[in-house]
């Protein structure tokens, strides 16, 4: 019995959300009085032994260029093989586009119970119960996971890793992967370069219809740059093609849980709130004092975004070095 944590790579580096998952998984292992192993898939020059700082004692590394492109089918085959090797009973995966699909395929492959959007350490005092976010953040469920293997996908920002000085042993791992996992041909990949990924971002600056048009996004982007933040938008904005669809935050878009969410010119429809209610601090800037978003906010400013955003950018540049 052990805990296996999938550590996702992004351009050769372990993603921040996966580092949180490593720490979370190591804590689960401690509760279950067992060991924690990280699974890294893809080539990397990162110092994988240093993942021991997060509490894992071993890293299984599948260094295969063919797996540098995130292919959930092949990753699930690798993960299932690692589960067998490690005799893992609990598998932890950070939520992401890849993580979600990998978790689903792995649940089918391993006949494992899967709970998504986990927000706390499990209660193992009598069985195995986990708290997780449901109804797009409008509620939580406490779910009992029955006997057998368990997969958890972890929401970002629900644990704060405390690092140790430990190092992990690194073992290379080369499971066989069925050719059928590579049945899809990747024709083209379009990735925004130089942007901070929304799902990884600690700070998000987001715009709504109050930004008045795509040509007015510069002040918002400048604030995001000053804060090292990602940019997001509300559904009407992506529907109008002012911003790309992958920036859409809300019930039918991306659900985010950053440290700070700054909503600019977004009135706060319930569907948008559902996508951001996991944020630690919500700031709302809107010229309409009646905007419903103020009710969900921690800080609010009633005013013109085009006046306020440049002033915030200036203050951020002065104060954050």
């Amino acid at each position, binding site marked *: 019995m052990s805990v296996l944590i999938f550590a996702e790579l992004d351009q050769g580096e372990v993603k921040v959300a996966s580092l949180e998952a490593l720490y979370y998984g190591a804590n689960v292992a401690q509760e279950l009085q067992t060991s924690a192993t990280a699974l890294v898939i893809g080539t990397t020059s990162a110092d994988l032994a240093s993942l021991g700082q997060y509490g894992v004692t071993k890293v299984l590394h599948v260094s295969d260029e063919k797996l540098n492109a*995130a292919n959930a089918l092949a990753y699930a085959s690798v993960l299932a093989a690692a589960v067998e090797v490690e005799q893992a009973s609990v598998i932890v995966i950070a939520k*992401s*586009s*890849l993580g*979600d*699909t990998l*978790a*689903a*395929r*792995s*649940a*089918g492959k391993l*006949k494992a*119970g*899967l*709970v998504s959007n986990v927000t706390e350490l499990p209660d193992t005092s009598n069985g195995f*119960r986990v708290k997780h976010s*449901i109804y797009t953040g*409008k*509620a*939580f*469920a*406490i*779910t*009992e*996971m*029955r006997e057998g293997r368990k997969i958890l996908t972890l929401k970002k920002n629900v644990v704060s890793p405390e690092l140790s000085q430990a190092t992990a042993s690194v073992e290379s791992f080369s499971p066989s992967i069925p050719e*059928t996992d590579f*049945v*899809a041909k*990747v*024709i*083209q*990949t*379009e*990735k925004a370069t130089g*942007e901070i*990924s929304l799902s990884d971002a600690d*700070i998000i600056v987001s715009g709504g219809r109050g930004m008045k048009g795509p040509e007015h996004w510069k002040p918002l982007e400048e604030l995001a740059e000053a804060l090292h933040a990602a940019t997001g938008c509300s559904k009407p904005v992506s529907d109008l093609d002012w911003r790309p*669809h*992958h920036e859409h935050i809300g*019930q039918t878009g991306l659900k985010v849980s950053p*440290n*700070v969410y700054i909503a600019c010119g977004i009135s706060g429809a*319930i*569907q948008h709130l559902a996508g951001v209610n996991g944020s630690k*601090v919500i*700031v709302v800037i809107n010229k309409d004092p009646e905007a419903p978003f*103020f*009710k969900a*906010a*921690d*800080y*609010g*400013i009633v005013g013109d975004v085009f006046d306020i955003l440049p002033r*915030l950018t*200036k203050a*951020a540049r002065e*104060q*954050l070095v």
Partner: protein
Amino acid sequence: MKILVCLSIVPDTTAKISFTDGDTKLNKTGVQFIAGPYDDYALSRAVDLKEQLGGTVTVLNVGDADGEPIIRKALAVGADDAIRVNAEPRDAYFVAEQIAAIAQRESYDLILMGRESIDFNGGQVHGIVGEMLGLPSYSPVMKLEITGHTAQLTREIEGGKELLEAPLPLVLGCQEPIAEWKIPNMRGIMTARTKPLNVVEPTGQDSLTQATRFELPPAKGAVKMIPAAEAETLITLLRTEAKVL
């Protein structure tokens, strides 16, 4: 083209969520139920593909009889027939088993559903069904074109998108903008009444997980308003008071 579309039935996106029976059940009073919004996108694309390529669209729901008006609505927008598995959708594995059992009896070229339901937000069913049937599954799919026995699909990835080509049959989790939502017209509503809606009993095992209790998030504290003239103080407050910068 033979397409199966799986529909979840969920509280409306604007529903206020609360619980009853000692926080063990959803309080359904005043809550309107709808087809999962992502599933609606899947259904709309399926109907478009049928119109373009010929074939049939079957709608499948795992749920009780209360959902039948919503299934009829799916028939009204263009599905040909429907199957309701007469069971509470206990967990994703259980639902996937029902879908896989039906798909094993019939062979579908495409099994489409939303990327996730908006109640439990698991996003699990398409992947588990794919594994159970030994078929590739991809999600979230934003664009889908079929030529012969090949699908070209655009899938959202972290910070971008990926164009893939894969042979049918496939299981896909869909999201906007894969199609425009369809609103049933009067003729559709009339014909939907006569389309077959078959009720079958569930198969397979019990669930692997069970939600035992529910909680609402803690109430939000009052918002701290900053006068627009002093907007700059926000950055200081985020640094020193909220300690998030």
